[in-house]
């Protein structure tokens, strides 16, 4: 393809991601939020924190979550759908029906605010308006005086899923409500709702409940919702009931902010439906002992969607869909897939194999995870890594008893701090890899919501072919005093809890990319400055470690003086800018060895020439060296370099 995407340039095409060869279904997810609008849902919850005067009602909290969810999904799941259905509202709206239409309403007191679809910019805007309680939104969030029938709400959802998201592998209905018993003792309404819930189950829609406790009343699932929600998810029989009922405690807290936070955390953890990378894979512990496991990818680099071609000839810009056909070079005849032969270039010619032979070359047997022995965890070097890990979890589908055996292995490996070395074939055509299989503990966040699941991780190891040689370099081992100074600096700058928390670091370029697109799509002003949490906290670094850095730098000078006295060759470098007695003498051998040029003197040189407007008198090497030291690109002709340097110094 001709369209160059800046993010994909150096990316190697990976032929993986979720693939389920057996399914006829589209690997897509559709989420419909069903948000209860009632007097109690609209009642603002007071904030316990007196500094924050924001009052949050359960409905607005739910809408905020939906809005947040929508924005996230545009980035993370650009092909997945979502919708927002309000129920219990005075107003009703369902496709072309509303109060003004003639005849009876199909779904009274159901207001389809955002139709189930991939969100459009306008829908993002509308939902935000509703969240901010602007304009027309005010008129929608009015509770009905009539009782809304849950059967009707569920069937309404059914119809939305049936028509808008047919054949999706995952369809989920998120119900946010504080009413644990909408129909009380009314048997007829209850059983109608139960039947409609079963319909949804059979349709393959799973209901996920986000219950909200009322200030005076805990939410009790058993009153009504236990009849509505199923033990297993219709599409993921492995998904356990535990996950469906655990939200009880998380949303119980009374005040508005914590309500919003716990709801956010609860909904965030379900942003993506579970999709397995492989299912019912045999895990062979030894000859004649196999259990079955399913595999998932829990860490995967999220990239911005590629750029596309846009048709501007219509009323609105429209994405043009590219279609690739393959043609024979000699006759421009269209080639069907089955006609394609694979050949390897060799010695200026092609070496061909029959399709079966070609297939056989990659075939090293049926997919399997086979343990070939155990090792202490400490035997796994830091560098022995090739890509993201696979997560595996037991399944009872092929071997009854898999879970307990897996659990026993999991506990043993955790306790003994060991890992298994495994021969791992993920798919029939996938080449085998040698993997380190280690046990991972369950981790939960401050709201008690699971962050990392318990299970086993398979880390693909590099082969001998994948290891690169160390470049030659001279070694100068730092003497103790210098190390002592550095140690203090490191101790001063520990991250919170002395650990890395991925959730604290959103990808800045990804976020910026979509932030700009959002502004362009909504015709808003472009944001000035990106929010980038990956930028180090400079002020803190200076405050906490500044003094120690100076000590270290002084020591470095001393130690360096010692070794340079021992070796006659004068080498110099900038290590620390602006330190007291740093070498500002020009490098004596700068012409001989480029690498030995002092960055400090280069910088001074460049600045002087800039002041006298004689930058072009400097050599290309000096200009390049200066640009590199500023983290700027150093490619191009001399004129380009000069221009870039000027631009940079002007901005100072």
């Amino acid at each position, binding site marked *: 393809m001709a369209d160059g995407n800046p993010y994909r340039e150096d990316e190697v095409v990976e032929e993986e991601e979720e693939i389920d060869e057996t399914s006829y279904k589209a690997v897509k997810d559709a989420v419909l939020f069903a948000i209860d609008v009632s007097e109690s849902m609209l009642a603002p919850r007071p904030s316990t924190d007196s500094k924050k005067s924001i009052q949050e009602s359960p409905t607005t909290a739910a809408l905020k979550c939906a809005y947040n969810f929508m924005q996230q999904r545009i980035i993370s799941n650009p092909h997945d759908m979502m919708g927002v259905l309000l129920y219990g509202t005075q107003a009703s709206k369902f496709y072309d029906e509303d109060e003004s239409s003639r005849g009876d309403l199909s779904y009274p007191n159901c207001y389809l605010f955002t139709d189930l679809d991939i969100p459009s910019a306008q829908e993002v805007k509308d939902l935000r308006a509703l969240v901010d309680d602007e304009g027309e939104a005010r008129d929608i969030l009015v509770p009905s005086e009539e009782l809304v029938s849950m059967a009707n709400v569920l069937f309404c959802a059914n119809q939305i899923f049936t028509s808008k998201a047919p054949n999706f592998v995952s369809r989920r209905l998120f119900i946010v409500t504080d009413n644990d018993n909408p129909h009380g003792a009314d048997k007829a309404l209850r059983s109608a709702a139960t039947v409609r819930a079963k319909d949804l*189950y059979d349709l393959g829609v799973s209901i996920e409940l986000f219950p909200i406790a009322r200030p005076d009343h805990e939410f009790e699932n058993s009153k009504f919702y236990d009849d509505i929600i199923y033990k297993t998810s219709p599409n993921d029989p492995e998904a356990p009931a535990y996950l469906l009922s655990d939200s009880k405690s998380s949303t119980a807290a009374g005040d508005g902010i914590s309500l919003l936070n716990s709801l956010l955390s609860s909904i965030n953890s379900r942003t993506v439906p579970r999709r397995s990378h492989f299912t019912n894979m045999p895990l062979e512990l030894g000859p004649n002992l196999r259990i079955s496991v399913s595999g998932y990818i829990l860490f995967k680099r999220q990239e911005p969607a590629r750029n596309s071609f846009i048709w501007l000839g219509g009323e609105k810009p429209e994405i043009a869909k590219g279609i690739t056909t393959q043609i024979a070079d000699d006759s421009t005849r269209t080639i069907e897939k089955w006609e394609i032969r694979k050949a390897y270039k060799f010695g200026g010619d092609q070496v061909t194999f029959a399709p079966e032979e070609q297939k056989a070359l990659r075939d090293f047997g049926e997919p399997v995870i086979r343990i070939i022995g155990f090792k202490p965890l400490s035997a796994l070097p830091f560098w022995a890594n090739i890509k993201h890990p696979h997560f595996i979890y037991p399944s009872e589908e092929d071997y009854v*008893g898999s879970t307990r055996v897996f659990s026993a292995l999991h506990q043993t490996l955790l306790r003994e701090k060991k890992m298994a070395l495994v021969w791992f074939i993920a798919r029939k055509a996938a080449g085998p890899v040698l993997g380190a299989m280690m046990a991972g503990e369950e981790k939960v966040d401050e709201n008690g919501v699971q962050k990392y699941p318990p299970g086993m991780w398979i880390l693909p190891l590099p082969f001998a072919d994948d290891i690169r040689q160390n470049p030659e370099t001279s070694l100068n081992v730092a003497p103790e005093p210098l190390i002592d100074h550095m140690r203090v600096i490191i101790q001063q700058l520990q991250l919170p809890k002395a650990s890395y928390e*991925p959730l604290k670091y959103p990808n800045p370029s990804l976020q910026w990319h979509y932030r700009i697109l959002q502004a362009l799509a909504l015709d808003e002003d472009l944001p000035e400055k990106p929010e980038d949490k990956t930028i180090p906290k400079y002020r803190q670094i200076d405050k906490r470690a500044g003094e120690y850095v100076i000590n270290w730098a002084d020591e470095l000078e001393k130690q360096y003086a010692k070794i340079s006295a021992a070796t006659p060759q004068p080498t110099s470098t900038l290590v620390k800018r602006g330190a007291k007695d740093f070498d500002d003498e020009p490098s004596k051998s700068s012409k001989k060895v480029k690498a030995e040029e002092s960055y400090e003197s280069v910088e001074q040189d460049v600045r002087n020439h800039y002041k006298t407007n004689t930058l072009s008198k400097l050599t290309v090497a000096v200009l390049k060296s200066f640009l590199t030291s500023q983290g700027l690109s150093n490619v191009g002709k001399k004129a380009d370099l000069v221009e870039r340097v000027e631009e940079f110094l002007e901005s100072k």
Partner: protein
Amino acid sequence: MAEKEATVYIVDCGRSMGERRNGRSVTDLEWAMQYVWDRITGTVATGRKTALVGVVGLRTDDTFNELDDDPEFSRISVLSGLKQFLMEDIRQLGEQIKPSNTNKGDAISALVLAIQMIITQCKKLKYKRRIVLVTDGQGPMSSENLDQITKKIKEDNIELIILGPDFDDPEYGVKEEDKDPRKAENEALLRSLAEDCDGAYGTLEQAVAELEMPRVKNTRIMATFKGFLQLGDAEKYDTAVRIPVERYYRTYSAKPPSASQFALRSDLAEGQTQSSATVAGNEESQTDGSSLTTIRNLRTYQITDETAPGGKRDVEREDLAKGYEYGRTAVHIDETDANITTLETRAAIELVGFIQSDHYDRYMHMSTTNMIIAQRANDKASLALSSFIHALFELECYAVARLVMKENKAPTMVLLAPSIEPDYECLLEAQLPYAEDVRTYRFPPLDRVITVSGKVVTQHRNLPNDDLLDAMDQYVKSMELNDTDENGEPTESLPIDDSFSPVLHRIDAAIRHRATHPKEPVPPPAKILTRFSHPSEDLVERSKKCLDKLIEASDIKKVPPKVKGRKRTREAEKPLSGLDVDALLHQEKRHKISPNNAIPEFKQTLSQAENIDTIKEAVQQMGAIIEDQVKHSLGDANYDRVNEGLGTMREELISYEEPALYNDFLKRLKDRLLKEELGGDRRELWWLIRRSKLGLIDRVQSDRSEVTEEEAQAFMSAKWVV
């Protein structure tokens, strides 16, 4: 650039080479050629123009060389002068190399010729010069002027390698019994020659055996980043530290050779269709002489246009602008603003903070790893970095850093770990996940079971009992890998250096084999490639007892494949409360499947069916609904629904063991689609059904089916016409 190379292979083709000796299944010549072919194809595979190969035949029937007037040089043929070897040369050589009818021809003369070839080609230029002589040592050899030859070889820095079948090699443990005295004499001569030239002398057995050992390609070392490791902002604070560093790959996935796509030449293929659309990119070089032609990718662009037939319209590439999707909204970006969505960054490795190494979960590594060293030839930088490395090591810390490789490239979060070896120090680097890269799929705990009511249970069929835990513990201990290093010392490390990429070396070997033996089947993968596919025999032996105990304690039962799908006997799914919803459904009395709730009602009808007629009736109703959806589909509007309906029907009827009902319906549907009875041209729908693998249910999928796999395949075959 890799160094230029010139290698001349002298291959003994004498009559005696055509014999099979010492119980071998191949002739000596075939055996020798295993080695020679491997070397030559290894060179060809690099595709380098500067790696030259020449081949001299020794003891050939004819004489063909530049000194062929001289009787000393008779029976020696230059089969190929020094040049870049190509497929054509391989083919030619394959035809020329066969045992001759003579045993005459002097190996030493051939050596002189080879030296001459190298001198002519390489002159005084920088070349890696090499002569490989493979002979059985049965021919006549004159020892005249040997010292001059030796001198010349050493002078020109030519590497001499001499190999032969059954050459005695006490080191490798080969000694031929009852050796022909002439051969023994020749062997002695060749050995002393090789030794005098500082060359190598060996027995062919060893050389061929070592071919199995995959050769790891060394890649040129190149820095992927040269810049600064920074702590703090040097522009604002004079307490900032900047250490000049360089970054290199530590691991990088070696990719197997990739195949290109070709098609049979059009004059050989039947049927031609012309396409008039414009041709874009991806052109591959023309194949010469073979029956294949390259394939090009043709890209066309479509937009939705409700007025056009099929609802889509082609647009020209030139009329399109660039942009992105935001949700389903197209966002157009002006050429001049092309970089508007790019985050501005400066190249650097900036330290963000430090973490305790035991607080890090090793499975968070997202990528290949890199290494960072101080700028080369910069002692101060190296001293500074060393203090950083040692301090991290002593504190058992890792550093978290923000890496920007080039100006305006996206930043990545990386983890830096110290690495200290006796003669090498560096930082190791691995990429960390961002918030967006973490998928929070949740799973129940493994050491306890939480029931629906929220009760925690510690004894359960899904939890191991003490026996099982104990057996597992013993088994894991018994399967401990005790690897040894090259000196036989036990080592803690993983056998990474002995593991070779199976796919890479398999394909590489297959290509080279196919190139030299085009008519033979591809040999199986070398044993060394599958060395780690199973636990070693002695480990299995050692742990046998523990495994038996573990198997007993595990009590694993394989689920018979048939039971998996069977639904008739299965319990209906119930909600959390366990309420019998089916009973409620019974009361509702849904007689007819309603089109707007078809899938649930179809499933429910089946689950309540008491006889086959009810199932048939349900399938018929469902079929009518599906056909109706097809008929009324505007373009492809209903196709996904149709697909879902068909898929559900197929799945359900497999579970209810009534495949024939589905198969009959699908045959009818196909027939009606063909005859365009369901709203005109529905080819696209049939294509979708094919792609979704919704064909006939065959015997493999249901043993009640009477359709064979072949029949099912033929039914769905590419051709639209039956």
